[in-house]
């Protein structure tokens, strides 16, 4: 699973370089997120801007990625495309995560 990351001020932004997080890659995604967040970065933002589709396995893998974080770490989401947003809204998982509309406005919206 192709993930890349950069540190942007207080945020570690992890970008998913794939069109789908689905049953075919859910486990690989979760493992790749474990690697990306294993440095203990306090505030991780998952950039889903390239992801056009997730199924419930992909949703579960994103939730698992949050649950496997260490104490003092948090995971936000950013840039949900329409079909991805639909899955979060229907399952109400949008109420669990802080969701940023764009990466550019991260610093403005997030007070801490």
């Amino acid at each position, binding site marked *: 699973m192709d993930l890349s990351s950069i540190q942007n001020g207080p945020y570690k932004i992890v970008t998913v370089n794939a069109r789908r997080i*689905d049953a075919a890659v859910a486990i690989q995604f979760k493992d790749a997120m474990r690697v990306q967040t294993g440095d203990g970065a306090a505030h991780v933002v998952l950039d889903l801007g390239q992801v056009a589709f997730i199924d419930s396995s992909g949703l579960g893998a994103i939730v698992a990625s949050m649950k496997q974080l260490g104490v003092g770490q948090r995971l936000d989401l950013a840039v949900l495309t329409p079909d991805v947003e639909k899955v979060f809204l229907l*399952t109400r998982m949008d109420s669990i995560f802080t969701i940023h509309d764009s990466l550019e406005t991260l610093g403005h919206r997030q007070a801490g």
Partner: protein
Amino acid sequence: MHDSASTAVFNVDASPEGVRDGLQRIRRFLDDSGVHQDMCGTAEIVLAEALNNVAEHAYELRGIGDVIVTLLVEPDGIQIDIVDFGLALPGLDLPRGKRPSLHHPKGALPEGGFGWFLIRSQTDALRYHRDDGRNHLYMHLTNEAG
């Protein structure tokens, strides 16, 4: 969204990769049929959950198995028929598909159990029957955009 009905039949392999490939072919057909993007997304979500269920349960993740998806796109919605030759649904009945509760501490949030909920929440007709060693799942999506 489109003036006349169009229909198509897709053969899908009951593996995670086969389901992904099938969904992408179906999405192109829906796009080409002039279905609104929001409706395409809804259809892909319910098809993903239904086909993943077939791969995981009817064919027990063996990675092989045939699934036949028939779509009928009409002005007021989409009819979907899914046929497979695998194991029957337990009790020959559809799961209730209640939305999993999120009222848990973060460490106990559900990572699964959303599939049938997503299907039920987005379909206005849902029927299952077993016939001659085959599972038949019928779903109807209504085009709310008109």
